[in-house]
């Protein structure tokens, strides 16, 4: 199978990249492991605000439809239920649908593999009824299945509180939110007041002592701030321990990795063009550092423009002008979400360029590595 560009991953970053690339006339193959496109958007009933200017605030579930409706073009081939499982000696990727395995002869690759939730390990964490917050959200909003009747949330970041809100709105009783540190991690005022209004208690300075039950979760014991043990009857324990980039596809393509706590742990190194150390591989979305949906959509567009430029679908001048505007929007949106994320991203990009003696574009301060926007 031959194509100009292969995009691995049909979540928001991959979809954004596919829309951009096909709009310039490139032939694109989009590989998606799942039976449907959209990635995490498919279960996000929350309203996403602060998106790039061409979007408006909407739920993830409806944004999927908006994005996929822009993919009905003859130069795009979508392979659902296909997984990238290796690379051939010539550098092309190999994919499989479980029955046949074949090579995709693409001139460039964009990997938008997304992120996975980090597990949370405690005695009893493998018992059915213990699951990630994201799993509970999938069951609730995609499968229309109640993951339990009485839930305990472990972790108090914004994602944890968002899932608590969605569980509560579906009629599931929220027993408490357990947080190991002395303050609630989320600073989202709307979510915090939702918890307050619905009398959802927080156990701060608290950790899980154990989880028990016969074949599934029935009880859990919490060690609270005063060292007291509190036993609660729950049938669902959700954990929100943050996300990390999914790396297998980059490892297959021999891309260099680096570590950044702020960006979610290990991740590929990349340039201002979202090009990895393997010149045929670009990246986008949460794989390039855990961030908000607005940034995910923008990085997909920047990666696609960079690949299009190298394939001569767009001139260097036009591409650079567009990329400068996209980086500016990325700076605004990401700084609003979390300035540390943007600074860590710029640090990573600056390092990639200085290691190779590559000049940084005009919009990045060559000394400080910060953006030069108004």
């Amino acid at each position, binding site marked *: 199978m031959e194509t100009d560009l292969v995009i691995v991953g049909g979540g928001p970053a991959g979809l954004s990249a596919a829309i951009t690339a096909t709009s310039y006339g490139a032939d694109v193959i989009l590989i998606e492991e799942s*039976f449907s496109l959209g990635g995490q958007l498919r279960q996000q009933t929350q309203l996403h605000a602060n998106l790039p200017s061409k979007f408006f605030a909407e739920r993830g579930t409806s944004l999927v439809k908006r994005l996929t409706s822009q993919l009905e073009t003859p130069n795009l081939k979508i392979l659902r239920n296909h997984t990238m499982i290796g690379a051939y000696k010539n550098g092309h990727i190999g994919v499989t649908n479980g029955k046949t395995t074949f090579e995709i002869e693409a001139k460039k690759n964009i990997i938008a593999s997304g992120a996975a939730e980090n597990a949370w390990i405690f005695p009893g964490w493998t*018992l*059915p009824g213990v699951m990630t917050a994201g799993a509970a959200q999938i069951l609730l909003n995609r499968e229309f299945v109640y*993951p339990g009747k009485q839930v305990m949330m472990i972790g108090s970041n914004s994602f944890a509180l968002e899932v608590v809100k969605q569980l509560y*709105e579906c009629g599931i009783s929220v027993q408490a939110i357990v947080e190991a540190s002395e303050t609630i991690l989320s600073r989202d005022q709307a979510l915090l007041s939702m918890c307050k209004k619905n009398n959802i208690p927080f156990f701060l300075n608290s950790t899980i002592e154990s989880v028990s039950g016969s074949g599934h979760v029935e009880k859990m014991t919490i060690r609270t701030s005063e060292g007291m043990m509190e036993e609660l009857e729950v049938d669902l324990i959700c954990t929100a321990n943050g996300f990390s980039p999914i790396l297998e596809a980059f490892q297959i393509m021999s891309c260099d990795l680096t570590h950044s706590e702020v960006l979610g742990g290990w991740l590929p190194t990349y340039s201002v063009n979202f090009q990895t150390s393997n010149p045929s591989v670009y990246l986008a979305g949460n794989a390039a550092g855990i961030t908000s949906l607005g940034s995910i959509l923008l990085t997909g567009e920047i990666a696609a423009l960079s690949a299009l430029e190298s394939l001569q679908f767009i001139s260097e001048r036009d591409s650079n002008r567009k990329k400068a505007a996209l980086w500016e929007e990325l700076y605004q949106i990401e700084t609003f979400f979390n300035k540390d994320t943007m600074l860590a991203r710029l640090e990573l990009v600056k390092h990639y360029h200085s290691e190779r003696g590559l000049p940084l574009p005009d919009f990045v301060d060559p000394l400080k590595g910060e953006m030069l926007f108004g």
Partner: protein
Amino acid sequence: MQMVEHPILGRKFDQEITFYFNEQPLKAWEGQTVSAALLANGVKELGRSRKLAQARGVYCATGRCCSCFLTIDGLEHVISCTTLVQEGMVVSSNVGDPKRGK
């Protein structure tokens, strides 16, 4: 337990189907994954771990953690949270190691 109407998304599924888990016939909605359909029927324990025989169920629901392995239509250790349930599908718990070789 199955939700009839989602408070935000309303109704989504309309085609009811039958599948089998450990020889018991169960109802599901077309478009659901196997593991979600089982959870909707109150099945939390999908299988047992191979070494210590501890209960295993849905953990990540995205096809990465492999906690939801099941035998589906004769194929062992299938990730059930990313496999769509189908009419007449025969599903059973995994016990022990997968068969290897021919």
